[in-house]
């Protein structure tokens, strides 16, 4: 490590002051959406995290009271506007054969999708994210030559719709069997220090959650709330786009959205949230 990056690392470390006195978040609050959907925002960590963390927390826990409240009522959650668009898209004909998603799927059959993806796809011998599965349906089932981009507006809207119908389901992604190798790669990336700041995901989200980093309150970097509506950019944000932002903040070149590395990381990070509930679209700052 050269001198310059050492100084930067110390500055970041100093930025992580204890939060209790300045935090406005109610870390003990419970989340019930619309007075109906009871969320698990804190629970015992899955077995594979033994020795690392004992309790896992939804990112909701670390947000300010106002932001927390926005997610408790669909009317106050701006992410629901995109869910409505996603539902319309689900029923819209697209592709060569004039089919819509609804031609083959009832949305009620997709309620456990968000909780169980990324998932191994035997036919293609790869771990697939929800976005990859949607693209597969578009190219292989619907005859679309140009499926939606992983980070496109339409894709975010439809994945928000798919998440919303799965809200309250317990996240349970499989990490054994054929997906295990990919999961191992994801774990390796999670603990690798990146960039000029030489920080790994774990340095921030495992060792320092609950602390302040500059003006932000560090969470465990869970992905049970994706896609998230961020107040910062007033739109939906996908998981891998968030990863990209975090890697970039370490002043590193980042992996691309949809790359093998980010798919593996998504599987691994999802598995760190096994036991929390699906919250997407959640509200974050």
């Amino acid at each position, binding site marked *: 490590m050269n001198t310059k990056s050492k100084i930067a690392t110390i500055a970041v470390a100093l930025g992580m002051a204890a939060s209790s006195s300045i935090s406005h978040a109610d870390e003990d609050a419970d989340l019930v959406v619309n007075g109906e959907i009871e969320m698990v925002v804190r629970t015992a960590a899955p077995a594979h995290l033994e020795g690392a963390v004992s309790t896992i927390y939804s990112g909701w826990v670390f947000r300010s009271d106002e932001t927390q409240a926005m997610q408790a009522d669909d*009317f*106050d959650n*701006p992410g629901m*506007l995109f869910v*409505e*668009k996603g539902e319309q898209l689900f029923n819209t004909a697209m592709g060569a054969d004039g089919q819509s998603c609804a031609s083959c799927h009832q949305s009620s059959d997709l309620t456990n999708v968000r909780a169980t993806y990324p998932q191994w796809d035997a036919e293609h011998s790869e771990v697939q994210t929800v976005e990859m599965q949607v693209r597969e349906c578009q190219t292989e089932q619907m005859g679309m030559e140009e499926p939606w981009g992983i980070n496109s507006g339409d894709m975010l809207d439809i994945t928000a719709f798919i998440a919303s119908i799965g809200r309250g389901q317990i996240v349970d992604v499989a990490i054994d069997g054929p997906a295990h190798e990919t999961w191992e790669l994801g774990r390796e990336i999670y603990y690798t220090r990146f960039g000029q700041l030489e920080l790994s995901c774990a340095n921030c989200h495992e060792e320092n959650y609950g602390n302040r980093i500059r003006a932000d309150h560090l969470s465990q970097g869970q992905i049970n709330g994706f896609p998230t509506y961020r107040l910062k950019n*007033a*739109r939906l944000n996908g998981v891998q786009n968030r990863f990209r932002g975090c890697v970039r903040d370490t002043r590193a070149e980042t992996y691309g959205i949809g790359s093998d590395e980010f798919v593996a990381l998504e599987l691994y990070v999802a598995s760190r949230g096994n036991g929390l509930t699906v919250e997407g679209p959640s509200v974050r700052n």
Partner: protein
Amino acid sequence: MAENVTARVRAPREASAGEVVSVRTLISHPMESGMRRNGDGEVIPRSIINRFVCTLNDEVVVDITLEPSISTNPYLQFEAKVTESGTFNFTWYDDDGSVYEESSDISVS
């Protein structure tokens, strides 16, 4: 022109005479301020909701002027005192001349 504009309203269906009720509205709209530039350095034209009016039985509850720095998807919450049954009418005015309308009935006992 703004696309995909959807207005949503949440007002109580029932109330007792003289009660002060809370009304919430949300409209999806980019609220482009007219101060930003695109990648080519050209100003992106202003496109905002510039006025919002709520009436109850044709009596004005609120009449609001919205300014360019209001964020996307404007959310407005206000209170109304209700004395008799009737209808709330909500109207949003867009820079491009479009007018979006919603209504909600309330029965007062």
